[in-house]
C-alpha cells in the first residue's frame, strides 16, 4: 500500500486517492478551431513514458483537492508533488532504473 503525499494532508494510503491521468494537458482555448486530428489528439492521446511522468491526482477520500505529482513509472516512486496549475518542477537527471 503506497503512500501518496497530499500537499495538504500529508502522506496517506493510495486508496484515498483518484488518478487523473497525465498532467499539463490543457483544455484547448478554442476547440472549434482545431482540426479533427488535433482535437482527437487532445481527447484520446496521452504519453506513456518509462520514467518520470507528471500526473494529476485527487485526494478524493480526504480534502478533495487535485494536485500534480511526478511519478516514476518504473518504480512507482513519487518524485515530487505540486499544486495544480504549477509547472512541473525540474528534477534533474533521473535515468537510473531501480527495479
Amino acid at each position: 500500500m503506497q503512500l501518496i503525499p497530499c500537499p495538504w494532508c500529508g502522506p496517506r494510503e493510495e486508496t484515498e486517492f483518484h488518478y487523473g491521468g497525465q498532467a499539463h494537458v490543457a483544455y484547448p482555448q478554442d476547440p472549434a478551431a482545431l482540426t479533427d486530428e488535433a482535437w482527437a489528439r487532445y481527447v484520446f492521446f496521452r504519453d506513456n513514458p518509462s520514467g518520470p511522468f507528471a500526473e494529476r491526482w485527487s485526494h478524493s477520500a480526504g480534502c478533495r483537492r487535485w494536485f500534480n505529482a511526478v511519478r516514476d513509472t518504473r518504480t512507482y516512486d513519487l518524485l515530487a508533488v505540486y499544486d495544480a496549475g504549477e509547472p512541473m518542477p525540474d528534477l534533474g537527471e533521473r535515468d537510473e532504473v531501480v527495479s
Partner: protein
Amino acid sequence: MTADTSSRTSPLAAWADRLAGLAPALTVVERPFLTQLTVRASDPDAVAALGAALGVAFPADPCTFTRGDGPFGDVEVLWLGPDEFLVVARSDLDPRVPVEEALRTALGSARGAVVDTSAQRTTVALAGPHVRDVLAHGCAVDLHPSAAPTGTCVQTLLARAGVILQVVDAEAGVFTVLVRSSFAEYLAAWLSDACVEYLAGVS
C-alpha cells in the same frame, strides 16, 4: 421559522441501544441533529470575518479543528480543505438559519459559499478504553497522541466508509466521527462487530 423537532429521526436512532451495549469497551453515542454548515472561503479577511461572526477563529492549519463559545454557543470549525470548512454548532436548538445568515453576512461579497449540510452527516462520539484499538482495525491514519494530538481533524476511511475524524482529547482517547448519513448504519454495524472481542474481555 423554527422547524418541527418532534418529527425528526436521526440516522442511528434505531441503533442507540445496540451502541450503548458496547460499553464499557467502547462508548458510542450518536449526537444527532447538530447544525452543520459547509463554508467555502479562501480570502484571509473573509475567513477572519467568518471566525469573528462565530466567535471562534477558523483553523489555520490543515487537518485541525478549532472550538469556541460565541453568539451561537459552543461551535467547532473543522478544516476540510484549503478553502473548505465545516461549521458544527452544538446548540440543541435549531439555529441553522441564523448561523447560515450570519456566515453569509460575514462572507459579504468575497468569493465563497455557505451550504446547509446538517443532515448530510451524523456525528458519533467515541471514547472508552479500547477506542484506539477499535479505530486501528479500520483506520490507516496514525492516531497515536504524538502523531494525532488533540485538535486533529482528518478526513479518511474508517473501514469502508469515508469519515471526518476529530481528536477531541488525545490523552483521554476521545474522538468524534462524522459519517455520511447513508453510511451510518454500516459504520454502526462495523463498530459493533469490532467490539465483540473487547467486550468478551479476550484482550
